[in-house]
């Protein structure tokens, strides 16, 4: 993401987002941390972003494999499928 050392808030938060997935480069992280020393808005963003990542981790476990088609939906689907098979 470019070579310059001073980055904008937009760039800093982009790196911060990438970092939530462990995919920011070392150079990016250095620039981010320097930016965070100077910018309290992005510092707040960074703290809250970590919190959101934690929340999403909880949420992820909560919704695994819970979706099903209803019996009616399956019957409906079966009818349509049988029609196709008969063609």
């Amino acid at each position, binding site marked *: 993401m470019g070579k310059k050392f001073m*980055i*904008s*808030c*937009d*760039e800093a*938060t*982009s790196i911060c*987002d*990438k970092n*939530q*997935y462990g*995919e920011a480069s070392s150079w990016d992280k250095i620039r981010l941390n320097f930016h965070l020393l100077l910018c309290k*808005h*992005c510092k*707040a*963003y960074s703290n*809250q*972003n970590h*919190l*959101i990542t*934690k*929340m*999403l981790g*909880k*949420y*992820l476990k*909560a*919704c695994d*494999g819970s*979706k*099903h*088609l209803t019996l009616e*939906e*399956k019957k409906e*689907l*079966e009818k*349509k*499928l049988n029609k*196709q*098979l008969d063609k």
Partner: protein
Amino acid sequence: MSDIKKHTLNPDKWIDLYADYLFNYAITRIDNQDLAKDLVQETFFSGIKGKDNFRGQASERTWLISILKRKIIDHYRKINSAKGKKEVRMSFFTDGERKGSWLEECVPQTWGNDAEKEIENNELKGALERCINSLPEKYRIVFLLKTVQNYETDEICNELDISSSNLWVIIHRARVQLRKCLEDNWFNK
């Protein structure tokens, strides 16, 4: 292992065996009940139409998933190229002297000291879901694949035919909007 098992297709049993599996697969990727249902149906139809192309090397399930995958990509392409598609709000100045700085109304506010404890609150889950659902579809799909399904970046780029820089822009915008939504609807309500 002398005899290599050849897989066969039994469309009569597809609904019992795979409907839920395919539905789950689709809904975790596109996050839309009705659309997921339609895609499962279309997958079965395509499977029937193309059953002569089945060589029996992969399992029936794998084969059906590969059909569904294509349909998901097609769907993503469609929403990505649709005219008048919903976009996320801008959060930063896009040009001028302050380019890249926070827009006044989007500046992150303080969440208070209890924010850390708040994430244990079960009602927060509902707020989080609502905020995710409020993301435009194009953003929501990529965000969920990366964050909830834990897909590799390369995998998403391949599956949805986007570049990695494109992916990170999408993730960035999604997360900026998500943070703001949680702030407005939960933390600083």
